[in-house]
């Protein structure tokens, strides 16, 4: 009973306009990597999926986008909720996923197991939505690349182990590669594959 009502509750009360509003946040965040965006509406996504991650799922997922979930998300009410609200089929293998959601604290799977697209079709790659603790950490990271004038400093806290190493390896694959959205509660930022991350201040 609990599972079922969790699956059916929430969602966008106005899919047309909320979907558009969230998409514009994502589009701006992807165009300006590292800029923090805040989702204002809670879509009631089952825990442990965050508010921002839930809104992004409702905005971008549908029947055409196989989705992969990390273990705790897989065991939560999320699969039913996603299925009911978006129709997105579960991806049997990581390599088949168009989107993948990873909850806070979960071990980061190897990016190499997901699709990075092909040299001819680099767009056929996954977008990873990774929940972290917050964007108010103490270690500054510097982002550079398209979409960023000079450099942009971010302070993500609770990045999964090995994220920075995998990100550097991802960059080498260009134009292939995965794209990442980091979420923390109702906030998020985007890291398209073009973004370089280095330690330190500007």
């Amino acid at each position, binding site marked *: 009973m609990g599972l079922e009502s969790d699956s059916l509750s929430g969602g966008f009360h106005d*899919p*047309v*306009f909320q*979907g*558009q*509003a969230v*998409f*514009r946040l*994502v*589009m*701006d965040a*992807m*165009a*300006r990597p590292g800029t923090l965006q805040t989702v204002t509406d809670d879509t009631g996504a089952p825990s442990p999926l965050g508010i921002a991650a839930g809104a992004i799922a409702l*905005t*971008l*997922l*549908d*029947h*055409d*986008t196989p989705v992969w979930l990390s273990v705790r998300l897989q065991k939560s009410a999320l699969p039913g909720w996603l299925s009911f609200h978006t129709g997105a089929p579960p991806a049997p293998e990581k390599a088949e996923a*168009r989107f993948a959601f990873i909850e806070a604290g979960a071990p980061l799977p190897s990016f190499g197991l997901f699709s990075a697209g*092909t*040299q*001819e*079709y*680099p*767009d056929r*790659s996954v*977008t990873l939505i990774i929940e972290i603790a917050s964007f108010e950490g103490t270690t500054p990271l510097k982002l550079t690349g*398209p*979409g*960023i*004038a000079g450099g942009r400093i971010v302070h993500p806290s609770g990045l999964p182990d090995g994220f920075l190493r995998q990100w550097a390896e991802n960059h080498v694959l*260009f*134009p292939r*590669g995965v*794209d990442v959205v980091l979420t923390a509660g109702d906030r998020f930022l985007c890291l*398209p*594959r*073009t973004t370089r991350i280095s330690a330190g201040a500007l």
Partner: protein
Amino acid sequence: MSDLAAYNFAYLDEQTKRMIRRAILKAIAIPGYQVPFASREMPMPYGWGTGGVQVTAAIIGPADVLKVIDQGADDTTNAVSIRAFFAKVANVAVTTHTDEATIIQTRHRIPEKVLKEGQVLVYQVPIPEPLRYLEPRETETRTMHALSEYGLMHVKLYEDIAINGHIATTYAYPVKVAGRYVMDPSPIPKFDNPKMHMSEALQLFGAGREKRIYAVPPFTEVVSLDFEDHPFEVQTFDKPCALCGAENVYLDEVILDDRGGRMFVCSDTDHCEERRACGCVGELGVKEAAE
């Protein structure tokens, strides 16, 4: 048949918008790469901006202010028609003022006024493939992009120089984006190419008939292809705009009579009107106050 005219906000159904939105995000993540998308049949002909219209329809919301230009002008018939389409199906605010617009859909020009953060420029694109006229096959050009094999393009430009003494491409002049993909900037005059480089605005390109979407994020390098001994240069005009006196803008040639009389006026009508409203006058213009 009574429900024939019931269309969704911004005409496209939500599933189509999601498909286009996902394509836009990947396009932004791979600057200059043409993302194939399942372009829909729009209620206006292919060639009239169906790609741009689909991109605009996928991103536009009630808070947006839309400007539509064709040849730089807000009052060309197709610009009027597309603006009216969105005013009708999306009920959004429209403007002719470049700085008031959040989304500017364009055919063949980039506005003279420098675009700002928060603005999106949506280009209508007829042939998105910069290599198409050198190699008509999609299967071949896709491999060339995959391998970054752009020698053919340089050969073509160099042949121009050998034959004509100049690079004979004056519009849709190819650019390299973020050091990787060679991209067709749509048929804008090469005069506008430098405006793409490190622009604060997000630039999205939609080709409906050819089913491609591509993008240049803000603050991204856009370099027009050239040679050391033949550096890229933009068009210059001998005279300023005859109406507002503007220099360093792109001008339209207007034929005044059948005896060779002609004048040159701003192609960007909003820019010209704004200048005239501020009292700028060209040699054939009149002071606004006098009207």
